[in-house]
């Protein structure tokens, strides 16, 4: 998936567009949308605690069945519980939330038993019917996240259990069910407000004003241009222990975010780039980890697109021509080399020793062998999106200069995401600079880079191009045993590094800046941070 985390100049424009979402979003009798009295959470009653989180907004909707943008994930995560989840900073082990599960040996049948006694924010119990409705609705809406449950059939077994069945083994399904999009909604409430499990559903406007989940927080107010106010769900009886009575998530420019958190006007800032974090004032903490976003080069193996790039020698030359350390330096704090396409936080990620290495002499030799004699290739990339604060233009300029050093000449061709995405998806780019954010927390997500798979095809890498890797891809999709799975993905990663038409470059840093009084700040690849997990020291 590509989610948009814009920064700097573009964020300004994004904020502008976001501002406009509101009036229609607000629905109901409030055309202006922003008429709630008082000054947001600033006027919280004494004694009550509140926390202010600054981020750059990218919200289209907070209907769990439809949302698929980073800010939406943060909010939906706090408002809706999922059947399964991941705890704190763990990104590999699925744990029970609204239900516990068992699967058959083939990983084709998953049986969920609902946790007893859990209730929605209106006090009504969370039932199997709610779970079935929510998952079927996600599938039926045909919205952005609907693909998550492609090929999964959902059925109610009895009042305590439901069963999910897939045709092919799907060891990744539990991780998928932990994504906020699979949040369980109050089916009665949603249906009363136009909800259904097909395209006739009209509950989006309702869900943008009122949350209908069983999560630790409920929605108090949402202004897609400026802020979201969450308050503690008084009826919450799940395993989490939310600390703050009010959580305010505000749309703030990165430069302003930095000033705010330094001055204590906000407690958490999510939108600072690796560069900005380098010059932070004293008195704030930073959680810097490599994000799960992988920035990579795509080298087209279709000779019709480029004779030169389709040569295996050429791919080898590019892989050795890049000085990975210098890319990390540009990416700033928290960044790390992407050892393989599977980012470091997931099962099956490669060790540092397996990563691609810079070797100018080898690159030069390979480039010559491929017949690169200074003919101009095109390096295309989107220039209005900065994945996790990393400016792709800067990165492309550095890559261009490194390739030039070994005799490979490229012209840079930046374009707005909206224009470039077409050439990328159609496999028309000679060399592309792109990135991949995980859709769910399982390495199976990355098998899309295999020959004949979604992303593989974008590099002109067709089915049958590499039998060994294809074999590993199909094993990756179906192997259930954890230890075996780890080995399969590592083998796959190594094979991709050796022979695949992709060059994993960097995982930009995820930098969460926060006041020392705040505890429980953990980076999550899908929902960034869990605001209900934030504590106070």
């Amino acid at each position, binding site marked *: *998936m*590509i989610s948009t985390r814009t920064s700097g*100049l573009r*964020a*300004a*424009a*994004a*904020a*502008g*567009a*976001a*501002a*406009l*979402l*509101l*009036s*229609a*979003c607000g629905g109901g009798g409030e*055309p*202006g949308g*922003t*008429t*709630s*009295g008082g*000054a*947001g*959470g*600033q006027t919280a009653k004494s004694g009550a605690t509140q926390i*202010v989180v*600054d981020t750059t907004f990218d919200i*289209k909707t907070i209907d769990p069945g439809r949302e*698929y943008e980073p800010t939406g994930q943060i909010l939906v995560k706090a408002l809706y519980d999922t059947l399964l989840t991941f705890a704190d900073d763990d990104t590999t082990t699925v744990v029970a939330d609204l239900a516990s599960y068992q699967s058959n040996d083939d990983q084709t049948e998953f049986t969920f038993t609902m946790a007893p006694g859990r209730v929605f924010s209106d006090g009504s119990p969370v039932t199997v019917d709610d779970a079935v409705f929510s998952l079927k609705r996600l599938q039926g809406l*045909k*919205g*952005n*996240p*609907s*693909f998550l449950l492609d090929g999964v059939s959902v059925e109610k077994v009895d009042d305590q259990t439901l069963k999910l069945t897939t045709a092919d083994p799907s060891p990744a399904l539990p991780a998928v069910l932990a994504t906020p999009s699979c949040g369980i909604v109050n089916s009665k409430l949603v249906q009363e407000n136009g909800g259904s499990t097909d*395209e006739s559903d009209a509950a989006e406007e309702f869900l943008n004003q009122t949350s209908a989940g069983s999560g630790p927080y409920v929605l108090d107010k949402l*202004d897609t241009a*400026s*802020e979201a106010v969450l308050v503690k769900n008084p009826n919450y009886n799940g395993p989490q222990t939310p600390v703050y009575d009010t959580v*305010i998530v*505000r*749309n*703030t*420019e990165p*430069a*302003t975010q930095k*000033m*705010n958190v330094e001055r204590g006007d*906000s407690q958490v800032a999510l939108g600072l780039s690796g560069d900005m974090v380098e010059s932070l004032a004293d008195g704030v903490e930073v959680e810097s980890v490599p994000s799960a976003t992988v920035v990579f080069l795509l080298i087209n193996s279709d000779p019709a697109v480029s004779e030169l790039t389709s040569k295996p020698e050429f791919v080898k030359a590019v892989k050795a021509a890049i000085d990975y350390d210098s890319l990390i330096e540009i990416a700033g704090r928290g960044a790390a080399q992407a050892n393989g396409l599977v980012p470091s936080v997931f099962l099956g990620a490669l060790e540092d020793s397996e990563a691609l290495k810079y070797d100018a002499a080898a690159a030069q030799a390979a480039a010559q062998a491929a017949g690169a004699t200074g003919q101009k290739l095109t390096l295309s990339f989107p220039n209005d999106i900065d994945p996790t604060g990393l400016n792709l233009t800067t990165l492309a300029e550095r890559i261009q200069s490194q390739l030039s050093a070994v005799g490979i000449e490229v012209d840079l061709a930046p374009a*707005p*995401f*909206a*224009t470039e*995405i*077409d050439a990328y*998806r159609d496999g028309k780019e000679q060399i592309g600079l792109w990135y991949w954010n995980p*859709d769910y927390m399982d390495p199976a997500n990355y098998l899309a880079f295999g020959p004949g798979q979604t992303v593989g095809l974008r590099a002109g890498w067709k089915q049958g191009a590499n039998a060994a890797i294809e074999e590993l891809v199909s094993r990756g999709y179906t192997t259930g045993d954890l230890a075996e799975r780890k080995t399969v993905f590592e083998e796959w990663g190594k094979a991709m590094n050796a022979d695949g038409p992709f060059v994993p470059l960097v995982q930009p840093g995820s930098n969460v800046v926060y006041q020392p009084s705040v505890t429980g700040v953990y980076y999550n690849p899908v929902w960034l941070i869990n605001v209900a997990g934030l504590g106070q020291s």
Partner: protein
Amino acid sequence: MSPASANPDAGRPPSGAGGGRRHSALARYVAKRLVIAVGLLFGMTLVTFCLTNLVPGDPVAAALGQRAADDPEIVARFRTEYGLDRSLPAQYLAYLGRLIRFDLGTSWQTHHAVAADLAKAVPATMEIAFGAIVGAALIGITFGAWSAYRRGLATDQVLRLVSLIGISLPTFWTAIVCFYVFYYRLGWAPGSGRLTPGVAAPPNVTGMYTVDALLAGEWRTFVDASAHLALPTLVLTLYTIGLLTRFSRTSILEVLDQDYVRAAKAKGLPGRVVFFRYVLRGAAVPVLTVVGLAFGSLLSGTVLVESVFGWPGLGSYAYQAASKLDLLAVMGVGLVVGLVYLCVNLAVDLAYGFIDPRVRVGR
């Protein structure tokens, strides 16, 4: 493009001799202008429509998530929903059909009615643009008049230099420098956006936060909104002052050479009286024109300024829409700005009849 160089005489209304004839001439003139204005608006929709359809990219991929865009069923549904499965002329006609009912369509990006989006963005931009045009007109015309009055003297030289620097400032650069100095270094100005995060917007009446806050009596919100307005308005004012100073000076100097002014001087009226009674009034027409034109160019200038100050106005919306291939949103912006431009022009044209001194002096 510099409005100062546009021909101020374009479209001057015919000024008939008799009152009755003048009125009917004026009415005919207004009617003609309105017809032309409507024609221009249609032309604009056509131009934007063609331009945005020239784009090599497919708006569907941009509007849908990457995974959703891989699903032919979802793509087909999206195309049907937004009428993209029809031929281009059919799409354009459908757009015009909706336009007649004041329906600007739905933005693919924001999923909301373009009209509703614009209703949020336009007041935000107008808030800066009004402030800038009023400030710039007051200062610029004063400077211009002063400069013309002291023609050739040191004051004139200094003011000419100042106005020259004004029109030479790259607004995007001024904006960054101001933001850096007044916000980042000195901490005098608040950060980007229209309000400090956490301050709720006042009840929506005009959409301009300062006005709405006053109407609602929310003093604190008013102060906050004004503080946020200050820097972007300042940057746009600086540029516009230069423009207006230059143009007022030129117009006033031209009027100084007119026969009726010479006649007034010859009558022995003191220079001051001549200057204020005859010259300024004579120059009012072209100056008014350029104030109108400057307002149009201000709307353009806001694109760059808004992008630096994170101002959720028309410029940001236009930028976002253009780069996301959001066809209907781009057309909506084109319509609104064209409408503003035409209204301003019309207003200026009509104002001629009331303040053109030749109508009075020539009596």
